[in-house]
């Protein structure tokens, strides 16, 4: 029976939140579960966790980069059995530690896939057809004055290399195929069910393509996967689209090349140190920039919130998780 003291929270349907999350999600979760809001406590986190550790079997973590669920947090929660996140990406969770401790992780599964894929395509088309650039010029009242604009570049016939042919990468490929792009890819494993040409690494992929679209997960193998060598291979007209994580690309090198005309352009939804974005990009016409919003549609978030609830309900009813991460 709950006793209202600091050791309260014996409610079996207790979910720990370390940081505030989407208001709408918190409302939905609060209606169904008992939420422990760590930031509302005057106690430092370590003490707070110690005080509530026994009761905590479930943790929800929002992917906005402010908390990394590391070994220290995990060892303060000996009864933790499940982590649910609203992200697809798992770079904010020490997955190896979770595996060691038998903590299951449920992520966003496939509910955000199409949103990210279409955004990547939208960024590429914007860069190639100079849409944001043209929109800026019109809003500055320049159409009647400058007359003809700089021509864009045709989408069909472009050689597009997908870095990471997972769910998102394959949805990007499917869309660009319809525009007549020539698709190839690099992935950890070759995927025989797709007829696209496979390259064994990002460097050889870049050398054969006009565009690289970065869709892979961020882990120790993929940090700076788009590095100086890859950018050399892509060449001066090359275009990079990144909807993965900022750290997949050597951002300093990319910015330097953009400034010196050594790369054609870029469409970037993610950055190294969000929300900080290199200021040099702000005045460039050949880049399209977005504030990590490739996932943020009303439709997908309605599905996502439902998925989060479904995962937690399944857990508390001893049923299999809906979107358990099985392969890291």
């Amino acid at each position, binding site marked *: 029976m709950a006793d209202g003291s600091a050791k309260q929270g014996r409610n079996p349907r207790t979910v720990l939140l370390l940081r505030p999350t989407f208001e709408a999600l918190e409302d939905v979760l609060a209606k169904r579960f008992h939420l422990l809001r760590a930031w509302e406590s005057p106690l430092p986190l370590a003490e707070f966790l110690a005080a509530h550790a026994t009761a905590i079997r479930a943790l929800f973590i929002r992917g906005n980069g402010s908390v990394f669920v590391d070994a220290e947090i995990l060892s303060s929660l000996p009864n933790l059995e499940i982590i649910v996140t609203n992200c697809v990406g798992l770079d904010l969770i020490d997955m190896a530690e979770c595996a060691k401790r038998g903590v299951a992780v449920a992520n966003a599964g496939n509910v955000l896939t199409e949103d990210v894929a279409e955004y990547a395509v939208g960024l590429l088309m914007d860069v190639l*057809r100079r849409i*944001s650039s043209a929109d800026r010029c*019109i809003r500055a009242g320049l*159409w009647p004055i400058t007359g003809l604009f700089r021509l864009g570049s045709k989408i069909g016939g472009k050689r597009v290399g997908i870095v990471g042919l997972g769910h998102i990468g394959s949805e990007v490929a499917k869309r660009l195929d319809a525009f007549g792009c020539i698709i190839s890819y690099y992935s950890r494993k070759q995927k025989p069910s797709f007829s696209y040409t496979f390259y064994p690494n990002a460097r050889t992929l870049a050398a054969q393509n006009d565009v690289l679209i970065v869709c892979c997960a961020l882990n120790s193998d993929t940090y700076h996967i788009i590095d100086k060598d890859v950018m050399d291979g892509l060449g001066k007209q090359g275009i990079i689209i990144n909807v993965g994580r900022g750290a997949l690309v050597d951002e300093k090198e990319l910015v330097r090349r953009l400034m010196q005309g050594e790369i054609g352009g870029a469409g970037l939804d993610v950055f190294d140190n969000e929300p900080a974005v290199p200021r040099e990009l702000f005045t460039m016409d050949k880049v399209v920039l977005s504030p990590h919003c490739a996932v943020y549609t009303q*439709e997908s978030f309605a599905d996502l919130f439902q998925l989060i609830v479904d995962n937690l309900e399944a857990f508390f009813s001893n049923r299999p998780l809906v979107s358990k991460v099985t392969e890291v």
Partner: protein
Amino acid sequence: MESLGVLLMLPLNPYLESELDRRCKLFRLWQIPKASRKDFLYANSPSIRALVGNSAVGADADIIDALPQLEIVVLYSVGFDKVDLAKCRSRGIRVTNTPDVLTDDVADLAIALSIATMRKICSADRYLRSAAWKTKGQYVFTSKFSGKTVGIIGLGRIGSAIAKRAEAFGCFICYHSRTEKANTTYKYYPDIISLAKECDVLVVACPLIAETQHIVDRKVIDALGSNGVLINIGRGSHVDEAELISALVEGRLGGAGLDVFEYEPHVPGILFSLDNVVLTPHVGSATVETRRAMADLVLRNLEAHVMNNPLLTPVL
């Protein structure tokens, strides 16, 4: 072709211009001050047998009358609404345009505008460049394009190309045109209001003729509604622009992606403060690759005419 006098109505393409200059006797109309044009044409009309224009500046009755030796109008565009076809017909003047070579570009732009409008790509870019991400936090939730219902007005070459691309996004396709098309599985709506009611994104992709002036009027806009998005890659006059603007400002229409306007290059300033519109300056075919292909088609039509061979892409 050296003796062929060609009147070029406006600067179109540096490559085309230099080829015409090199291979024909080129007259550049825009370099002649307006006041002297009548005299200029009178003086040179005996040589001028061909006219090259586009969808902005074509060949109206006045210019055709001023050129008694005119044999052919060669357009650097697919639209021929600025050519007086009746007059050409009565004079036996041939007319060619540039279909097909720009189909892909225009269809690509329709999809690009759809995504940019629904996902607010340009607006998010402005947000980021204004440093608002640091001060105001996450950008707004937008509307997903994939899986939506796309309605196309005019299922010709361009409309069909748009449909094919939208299908790759899992979109459901429906259309309105004068007659139902055989050989498609897309849902046909003989009534444009019903089409507008059904779809999430309405794309204008039909030619501009008398009947399609303001085909998108208040009724259609209201049917499309506050969650609907209008994409215009046809002509400004397809849409009642005043109604469109008031619908956008009042929130009765969800958004619009516009490549064309009623009084180009004038774009109503009231649109500049809206985040749910994307504005491009008639760039449907504006890629290096396509403009080159269009220029080559103009040159090949001229060559064919001079050699008495069948024209490649005749309108008339």
